[in-house]
């Protein structure tokens, strides 16, 4: 199975029967996830004396927590987003500690993911087009699951090419092939 499918995030978020009641229950659970995460992060910002507004949302079956504010927040992102990933991991664990359920919540800080998303989509499209033209398979640099998912999605929009991930984290890379 290609990783595109595994990482697409479409799994088991909306109940198969699509009944409104179940959807509402799922949403309520996600709102609760956001609340717990918001408390955990707000207290962290307080202790560090960082300025930041926390925004909670539910989108495509997951809780989204966004923090925006002062320049200090860049320290919580890190040079290549590594601090953001670490903090997201800890926040998921804090949610799981209270709910007893694994959390898939997404944390964004200072719009980092949003801007990475644009860059990586562009990279995916450009790579797809050049592979289509030359027929040479292309390996991209190692990326996090979040980054690979965006690249896979962008490649999928171009006809005649196909992408997979290979290698073990943290060296897992997207490879783009031409479909012959």
């Amino acid at each position: 199975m290609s990783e595109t499918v595994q990482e697409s995030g479409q799994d088991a978020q909306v109940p198969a029967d699509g009944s409104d009641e179940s959807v509402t229950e799922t949403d309520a659970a996600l709102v609760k996830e956001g609340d717990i995460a918001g408390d955990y992060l707000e207290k962290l910002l307080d202790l560090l004396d960082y300025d930041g507004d926390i925004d909670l949302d539910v989108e495509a079956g997951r809780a989204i927590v966004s923090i925006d504010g002062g320049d200090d927040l860049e320290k919580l992102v890190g040079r290549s987003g590594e601090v953001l990933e670490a903090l997201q991991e800890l926040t998921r664990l804090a949610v799981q500690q209270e709910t007893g359920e694994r959390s898939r919540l997404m944390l964004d800080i200072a719009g980092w993911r949003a801007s990475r998303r644009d860059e990586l989509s562009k990279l995916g499209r450009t790579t797809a087009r050049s592979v289509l033209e030359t027929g040479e398979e292309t390996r991209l640099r190692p990326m996090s699951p979040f980054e690979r998912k965006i690249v896979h999605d962008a490649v999928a929009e171009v006809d005649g090419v196909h992408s997979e991930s290979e290698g073990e984290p943290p060296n897992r890379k997207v490879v783009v092939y031409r479909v012959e």
Partner: protein
Amino acid sequence: MTVLTDALEHLVRGIVDNPDEVRVQSISTRRGRTLEVHVNPDDLGKVIGRSGRTATALRTVISGVGGRGIRVDVIDTDR
């Protein structure tokens, strides 16, 4: 500076079964500062995580906030 100690204590408290037993001690050595994390022995697995993943995440956040010179050690002892 107790900011980092408090922040680390908060991060750990949120992910364990016994938050009241979490203690972080700041120790200065010649090679820099070490933050020692003490938890209930039953919570050690949670703080370390599978293949040390959680401990690594704690270190990454503390380095991001306080700079690379700071060590985070999860203390593995039965008190």
